[in-house]
Every structure is written in C-alpha cells, then in structure tokens.
C-alpha cells in the first residue's frame, strides 16, 4: 500500500468518526483533496502545513482532555518528534507526520485553558477537567509537559505504534512524576477543587508571591482572596497572615530554598565584616572593590607586623638602660602634673598590681588616651632633669601613693614595683 493511500484512508476514517472525536465534516474535503495527489516534495510540505494548521485549530476549538493531554504527552522533550498514535485522534498510518515544535506554547496561550472562560459552551466540562488537572493556569500545563514529557520520552521513542491511555497522562497529581518534593504548591492544592470552580483566576497567577518564613521553609497562603463568595473576614485573615510572614518575591521558588538563604546570610556576614575592616584600616574608605580592599588590609597587617619587628629591634638596643622605675616616675609626676593622664604609655599604677585600688580618686586623671604621646614623656623627663642633677630617675614612691601601696602590700618595698631585669631569662 502506498504512503498516500494509507494516509488517505487514515484521514477518512478519522474524519468519519464524528466531530466529537476528530475532524469536523466541513474539513473533510480539504484533507481529502490535500492527500489525494501523488506524494512529492511540495505535497509533503503542504501536508506538514496542513497538519500544523489542524493541530492549532484543534487545540483552539476542541480542548478536550483526551486530545490535549495526548498531544502534550506525545511531544518529545525537544519538540521535534513524531506524533504517537492516540485513539480517537490519529491512526497508525499518520504516525510519521511531525508535530509543530511550538504547539505546546500555542496551546498554553490559547484562551480555553483559563479555567472557566468557555464554561458555558459545549466543551466546558472538558475545560473544567483541564482546570482541575493543571491548577487552572497555563503554567500548570507547561509544568506537566516538562515533567511527563521528560519522563516518558523513552517510552514514546521506543514504541511509537503502541497505544497510550490518556487517563494515565491527564489524571493524577502533576508533581508526582519526576518532580522533586520541594516544589512549590499550587493554590488549588490548598484550597480544593470546589473553590477553583468558583474562582476566576488570571492566567498569569504563576507569578504569585511566595511567603517564606525566617528559616527558609516555603508555605503558600492558606486563603487567597479570589472567590466572589468570600467576605471581609477572609480579607482580614489574609492581611494578618501577610503581616506575619516576610514577603519574598521569587520565581519558581529558587531563591527561597535553604541553600540560597544560607548563601545570602553568608554574603551579608562577609559584607558586614568587610565594612568593619574598612573602618579599621586607614585610607580604605575610598576603596570600593572588595579585592582592592583586601589588598589594603593585607598591606596594613604586613606593615604593622614589620613595625613590631622594627620596634622590638629598637627596644633591644635600648634594653640595657631599662633599669628605671616607671611606676615611681608616673606616680611622682602625677602629683606634680595633675593634668597629665595617668597611663601615658598605656598602663596605670594600679594596673601593675590589679588588686591595688587607689583610695584617693583625685590622683588618677584620664584613661588610656595618651598612650603614645611623646609630649607627656618630654614634660615628665624635663621635670625630672630639672629636679635632680643628671638623668637618674627616682626609685622611690613618695607621697600618698606610697602609703596606699604600703597599706595594700605591707611586705612590698618600693623597689618591687619597678621594672628591672631579673636573673632568670624570658622563657617563651
């Protein structure tokens, strides 16, 4: 049997099956005249064009659940395969005709999938069945096509002439085949099917906002203000629920899973600590990039470490003259210069012995502000040099501070508070 004859017989039998199953009667003449001629290249192109127009027309006019689910499940994932023979639509003779790759998109954009747009027509029940199966949205059909089409691609590619029941494809939960369990719920899974019938949801309700809690768990709102039968109480409860949750607008739940939230928290931590380091490092406030700021931080740490080495070398050269009583110096000159801060190099007399509490608070002024102030040292040493001949520093605690120290430590002499090298070396 020739190919054109088999296709002609298939189309005639398909056309004679009535308008409820396949092609209407007024299209018979077009298809019979189109397929009656001998197959040539132009005729084959015409056949493809006719099949494309037929697919679009059938998707636009007769959106029964059998036809659309069979078409959506029969298309391979890339959209470049052949039609699987589905009972009531095409017979086995037409299995080699290709389907338009943009059929699913055209079918999804058509108005009959809006969920109640053609509910009064003769095919309203089929439309409502589609609305129940796919959540009343166009994106539900697209998700179903992605899930089921990817899972059943091998099945349709392997046995192209076997029959696939359409109830297996259209029925059941659309997220149960091949989709992960963390997928975002559709609104009608929460509300129920009776509210879906009464509600008039728009076709772009896939861009709904996801209310995510602080832990990153996903939850859709339990009540949506979609039906006409809902009163003010439902509005108040929905507003109270909106106030409870953090409003995060995300596409398909990708930015609200736990990994994305953890990465966001980590980035916020890093930026906060970079700001802290930017305040610490001088001259780093003008830097904008993180890499340049990190270079500045590295250079600053290296310069501080080099300064510690340099100052330790200077202290090592000065160290043989370390036999001076810093405590006596500071305590004596605090009485002489009451405006001088007590810890001019970073420590105060009570710091060397932390149990020593001064009974006269007027002796100690200031805090640790003048830690590296050379003017304080110059004034102190000039006063010492003016008081005594030579550069000999005093080794005695006089005044009221010595009485306080003797009260606190009766066994300690004034020499015990001085800094002088001992006989045992520094053990690291």
């Amino acid at each position, binding site marked *: 049997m020739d190919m054109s004859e088999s296709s002609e017989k298939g189309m005639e039998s398909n056309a004679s099956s009535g308008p409820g199953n396949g092609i209407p009667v007024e299209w018979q003449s077009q298809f019979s005249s189109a397929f009656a001629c001998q197959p040539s290249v132009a005729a084959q192109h015409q056949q493809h064009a006719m099949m494309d127009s037929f697919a679009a027309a059938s998707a636009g006019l007769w959106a029964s659940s059998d036809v659309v689910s069979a078409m959506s499940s029969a298309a391979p994932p890339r959209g470049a395969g052949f039609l699987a023979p589905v009972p009531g639509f095409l017979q086995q003779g037409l299995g080699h005709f290709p389907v338009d790759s943009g059929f699913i998109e055209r079918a999804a954009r058509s108005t009959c999938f809006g969920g109640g747009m053609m509910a009064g027509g003769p095919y309203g029940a089929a439309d409502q069945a589609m609305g129940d199966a796919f959540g009343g949205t166009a994106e539900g059909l697209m998700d179903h096509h992605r899930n089921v089409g990817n899972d059943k691609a091998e099945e349709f590619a392997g046995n192209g002439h076997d029959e696939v029941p359409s109830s297996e494809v259209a029925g059941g939960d659309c997220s149960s085949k091949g989709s992960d369990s963390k997928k975002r719920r559709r609104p009608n899974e929460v509300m129920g099917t009776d509210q879906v019938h009464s509600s008039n949801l728009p076709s772009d309700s896939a861009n709904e906002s996801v209310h995510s809690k602080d832990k990153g768990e996903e939850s859709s709102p339990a009540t949506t203000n979609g039906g006409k039968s809902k009163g003010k109480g439902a509005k108040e409860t929905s507003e109270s629920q909106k106030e409870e949750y953090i409003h995060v607008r995300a596409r398909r739940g990708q930015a609200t899973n736990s990994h994305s939230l953890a990465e966001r928290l980590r980035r916020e931590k890093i930026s906060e600590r970079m700001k802290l380091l930017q305040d610490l490092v001088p001259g780093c406030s003008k830097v904008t990039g993180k890499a340049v700021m990190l270079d500045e931080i590295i250079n600053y740490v290296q310069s501080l470490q080099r*300064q*510690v080495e340099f100052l*330790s070398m200077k202290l090592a050269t000065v160290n043989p003259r370390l036999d001076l009583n810093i405590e006596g110096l500071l305590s004596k000159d605090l009485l002489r210069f009451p405006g001088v801060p007590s810890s001019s190099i970073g420590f105060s007399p009570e710091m060397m012995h932390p149990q020593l509490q001064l009974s006269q608070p007027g002796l100690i002024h200031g805090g640790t502000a003048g830690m590296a102030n050379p003017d304080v040292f110059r004034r102190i040493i000039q006063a010492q040099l003016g008081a005594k001949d030579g550069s000999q520093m005093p080794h005695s605690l006089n005044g009221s501070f010595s009485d306080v120290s003797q009260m606190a430590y009766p066994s300690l002499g004034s020499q015990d508070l001085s800094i002088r090298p001992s006989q045992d070396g520094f053990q690291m």
Partner: protein
Amino acid sequence: MDAKRTPPPPTPPNPNPSVIGSGAAADGGGFGRGEAAAATKHMLAFHFLRALSRIHRATPVTRRTRTIRRAAYSSMARAASPRRAWSRALLGQVRARRSRTLMRRAAVLVRRRVVAAPAPSPASARGVRIIAAGETSAAARAVPPPPRQQGEPPRAEALRRLVPGGAGMEYSSLLEETADYLRSLRAQVQLMQGLVDLFSYQ
C-alpha cells in the same frame, strides 16, 4: 660649679606617621571606646612589661630582638580574648616552643649525666623513629586549607598566612579574626612606640 645642662635631644622621627600617631588620632576605628578596650590595653601593657623585665641584660642584641618580638606577640595573645582563634594559635606556638626548649634542655642534662649510652630498644634497632611526647609531626601540625569557597577572592590565601591560626577558617570568620588581630596589633605597636620614645629620652 654648676654646669649648664643641655636640653634633651629632639624627638626621633616617627617611622610611620599614618599608623602611629599621638593619642586618639592613631586610635581610630572605634577602638579604645569603652572599658573593655581600656582593660585590654591595661592587660597588654602589663604582660608586655612583665616580659620585658625578665630579659637578661647580658643577652646579645639579636637574640634580645627575637625575644622581645615573641614577648610582644605572646602578650597580645594573653591580653586578647581566649575565644579568638589567633590568640589560641599564638599561645599554642608559645607552648610548643617552650616545650621544645625544655625537652632540649632535659636532653642536654641527660646526655651530661649518663656516661654510657643505653642499649638500643628494638624499635630503634629496626629503624623506627620514636616521636617524643612534646614533638608533633609536620603532617599533624599543618592544618589543611579548606576548599576555596564561591565568593572567596584569590588574595584570601595571603591573609590566611598573615593572620595566625587562619589556615583552617572559612572566609567570614577569617575576616572577623583579622579585624580583632588588627586592633591588638595596633595597640601593641602604640605601646612599643611609647616605650621606645620613653627610653630614648632617658
């Protein structure tokens, strides 16, 4: 007869005026505000001066430089919070160095006292090296670097090498440790600069 006293020598030039200033000018970035920072500075000065007072006068300058530098870092670590990873790392280095020194001294004393060498143990006869108690192998001492994370810049490895104990940290905690280490380093530099100025005026 009273000889005229000459005025004290002029102040030495500051090696890095942008870092070490006078008073609160060098103390930017919020450090020094509050009693906790003042107590940290007190403890830092106390530990450092106590370590300086234990250094031999007869120690040569090169060894004294190294000892003062170690004293500076150990006083920083003791004055800082013990929860910080860099202070724990510095104190661990100090303890390891001290234990190695003590073991070396003990080995020298044992070698002096014992005239005849003891009989070789079967483990040493087989050529197996016995690791002493305070000694750790290099593989156990070296912390493997963590895998480089997604937002981590390539210069973070240099920062890990600079901050003590930063080899096994993730990037955000490394930045926090760096901030605290910077504060302590700056306070230590200011203290040492003040001591150098004081001793150079004498």
